[in-house]
C-alpha cells in the first residue's frame, strides 16, 4: 500500500498558507528586532532529563519521546523557553545581562486524536533574561505592538498575576495539594466544583469568598472587584501595582486592548509574576501567551529573573491573507537554453521568472 498519510496532529502547509505564515513571521520579528531582541536557534531534540529536572508536573503523555544510540531518552522540545534557559545557563554564563533573545521555531506536544488539534506549531517569541518586574511594562508593550501587527480588527491582551494568587494561598495556610487543586479549578473557572472544594477547607468567610470569587475577577472592573476581595495589606499592594500598570498602559494608548483577569493562574510550577494571553476575534484559543518565570533559571544553575512570551503562528493562519508574488513564465525552445537563461537573468531584475521548455521555435514571456 502507498503511504500518503501524515502522523496524527501534523499538517502540511500548502503554498498559500506558507506565504501567509512567512509574512506573519516577518512582521512579528520586525517588532522583536525593534525592541533589541536578537535571534537564536536551538536543536529540535532535547534530553528528556532536561525537562524532567525542570518541571515538577511534567505531563508525560504529551511528550514525543525516543531513544538515542547510547540509550538516552530524548524528547522533541515542547516549548522554547526551557531550551533558551538552558542556553543561557550553559553558553552565556560570562555575558553581561540583560540578555534579549527572539526565536521562531516549531514546538511539539501530543494532543487528543481526531479532535482537530495541532501537535506541531510554530512558536515565535522572545525571552528577556536578567531584569526584574520593572521590565514587565516593556514586555507587555512589545506583546501589544506584536498583536497590532497580526492584521485582525479586534484583539485583547489579558493580564493576570500569579503572585497575587500565591500570596493569598500562603496567607491562608493551604497545603501544596490544596493550592494545586484550587489553582486548577480557578484557572478553568470550574465554579461548581470550586465552591464545593472551598467549603471543605477550613477558611474564614473573607478568605473563602476570595477564592470563590477569584475566577470572575475579570472584565472591565477586574481590578476594583479584586481590590474588594483582598484580605491583607500585601494583597492590596499587589492590586495597587496592577492599577499602576493599567494606568501606564492607558497613558501609552493601549487602553482598548488591555483587560485583566485575576482568575488566570496556569502552570504554578512555572510562572511567578504577571501572566498574559492574547486573543483575537474568531479564533477559539489564545494566540499569544507568556509571563514572568523568575524561578526557572535557578533550576539550571543560574539564578536570574526572566520574562517572555510567544505567538503561535499556525493558529493565526486561518484569518491571515497571503500576498502571492506574481511569477512570469518564460517559454523557450529546447535548443536555445543558454540564450533563454540570459534573458531570464535580465527579467529577474524586476521580479520572479519561471522557465518552461516548449516545442515552438520562439521565446515568449507570459504573465
Amino acid at each position, binding site marked *: 500500500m502507498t503511504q500518503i498519510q501524515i502522523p496524527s496532529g501534523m499538517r502540511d502547509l500548502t503554498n498559500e498558507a506558507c506565504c501567509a505564515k512567512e509574512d506573519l513571521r516577518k512582521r512579528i520579528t520586525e517588532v522583536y528586532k525593534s525592541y533589541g531582541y536578537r535571534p537564536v536557534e536551538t536543536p529540535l531534540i532535547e534530553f528528556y532529563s532536561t525537562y524532567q529536572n525542570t518541571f515538577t508536573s511534567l505531563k508525560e503523555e504529551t511528550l514525543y519521546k525516543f531513544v538515542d544510540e547510547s540509550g538516552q531518552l530524548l524528547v522533541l522540545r515542547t516549548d522554547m523557553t526551557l531550551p533558551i534557559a538552558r542556553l543561557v545557563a550553559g553558553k552565556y554564563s560570562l555575558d553581561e545581562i540583560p540578555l534579549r533573545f527572539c526565536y521562531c521555531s516549531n514546538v511539539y506536544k501530543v494532543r487528543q486524536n481526531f479532535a482537530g488539534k495541532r501537535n506541531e506549531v510554530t512558536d515565535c517569541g522572545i525571552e528577556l533574561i536578567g531584569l526584574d518586574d520593572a521590565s514587565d511594562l516593556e514586555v507587555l508593550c512589545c506583546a501589544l505592538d506584536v498583536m497590532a501587527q497580526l492584521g485582525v480588527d479586534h484583539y485583547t491582551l489579558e493580564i493576570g498575576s500569579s503572585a497575587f494568587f500565591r500570596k493569598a494561598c500562603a496567607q491562608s495556610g493551604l497545603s501544596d495539594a490544596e493550592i494545586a487543586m484550587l489553582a486548577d479549578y480557578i484557572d*478553568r473557572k470550574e*465554579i461548581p466544583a470550586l465552591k464545593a472544594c472551598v467549603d471543605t477547607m477550613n477558611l474564614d468567610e473573607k478568605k473563602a469568598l476570595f477564592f470563590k470569587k477569584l475566577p470572575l475577577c*475579570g*472584565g472591565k472592573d477586574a481590578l476594583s472587584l479584586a481590590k474588594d476581595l483582598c484580605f491583607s495589606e500585601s494583597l492590596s499592594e499587589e492590586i495597587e501595582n496592577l492599577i499602576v500598570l493599567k494606568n501606564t498602559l492607558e497613558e501609552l494608548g493601549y487602553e482598548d486592548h488591555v483587560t485583566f483577569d485575576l482568575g488566570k493562574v496556569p502552570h504554578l510550577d512555572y510562572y511567578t509574576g504577571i501572566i498574559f494571553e492574547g486573543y*483575537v476575534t474568531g479564533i*477559539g*484559543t489564545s494566540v499569544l501567551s507568556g509571563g514572568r518565570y523568575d524561578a526557572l533559571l535557578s533550576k539550571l544553575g543560574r539564578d536570574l529573573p526572566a520574562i517572555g512570551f510567544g505567538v503561535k503562528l499556525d493558529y493565526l493562519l486561518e484569518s491571515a491573507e497571503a500576498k502571492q508574488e506574481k511569477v512570469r513564465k518564460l517559454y523557450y525552445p529546447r535548443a536555445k537554453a543558454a540564450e533563454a537563461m540570459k534573458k531570464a537573468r535580465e527579467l529577474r531584475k524586476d521580479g520572479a521568472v519561471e522557465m518552461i521548455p516548449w516545442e515552438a521555435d520562439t521565446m515568449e514571456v507570459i504573465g
Partner: protein
Amino acid sequence: MSLSVALTKGRLEKETVAMLEACGYGTERLKNKGRALVFPDTKKDIRYFLVKANDCITYVEHGVADIGVVGKDTLMEGGKDYYEMLDLKIGRCRFIVAGLANANPLEKSGHIRIGSKYPNVALDYFHSKGRDIEVIKIDGSVELAPVLGLTDGIVDIMETGATLKENGLVVYDTAAELSARVIVNKASFKMKRDEIMAFINDLERMVEHAEEN
C-alpha cells in the same frame, strides 16, 4: 456580538429548553424543530444548535460554539480545555459502582476487571481508592458484563436504579453526582464577556429560583 450555543440532544434537551424559555429567551424554533439543525432565538441575538454530548465539548473547545450545555458525565470523561461556569442542577443522576450481590468489586483482592462506557472515570475512581484495575470498554447495556461474568463490576450512570435491580446488580458506591453544566470557550469569554455573563446570570437566577421552590 451574537452568541452561538450548543445544546445536548436527548435527555437534557427538554429541561434545558424549558429553562431558557423561563429566562425569557425565544425558544419557539427549538420546540418545533422540523429538519433544521440551527435554531435562531426569536428574541435575542443567539443561535442554538443541537448536538451529541461529546460533540458539544468539541464545538466549544474550537470556539465554533461560545457556550455549551452538557452533562457532567461527558465532561468527566473528555477534554478539559474550556471554562465550566455553572451547574444547572437539571438532569441529575449519579456515577455508581455496581456488581453482583455479595461481590463488591471494591473488596475483591487480586485482579479486578470493570466494565464501563466511561473508562477514564472508572480508572480515576478506583485509582482514588488506591486500587489498580483493568477497564473493559462496553458501549451499551453495561449491566450485562458482570451478569455474564466478563467483569467483576461496572461503573455507569444511574438515574432510578431499576435496570440494575432487574438484573440482580447491587450498587456499592457513588463515584460522582452528575448534572448538566454550562461550559464556555476560553477565547469567547474574553471577547464576548458581557454577552456570556448575561446568559449565565439569567440561567443562574433560574437555578436559584428552582432551589427556593
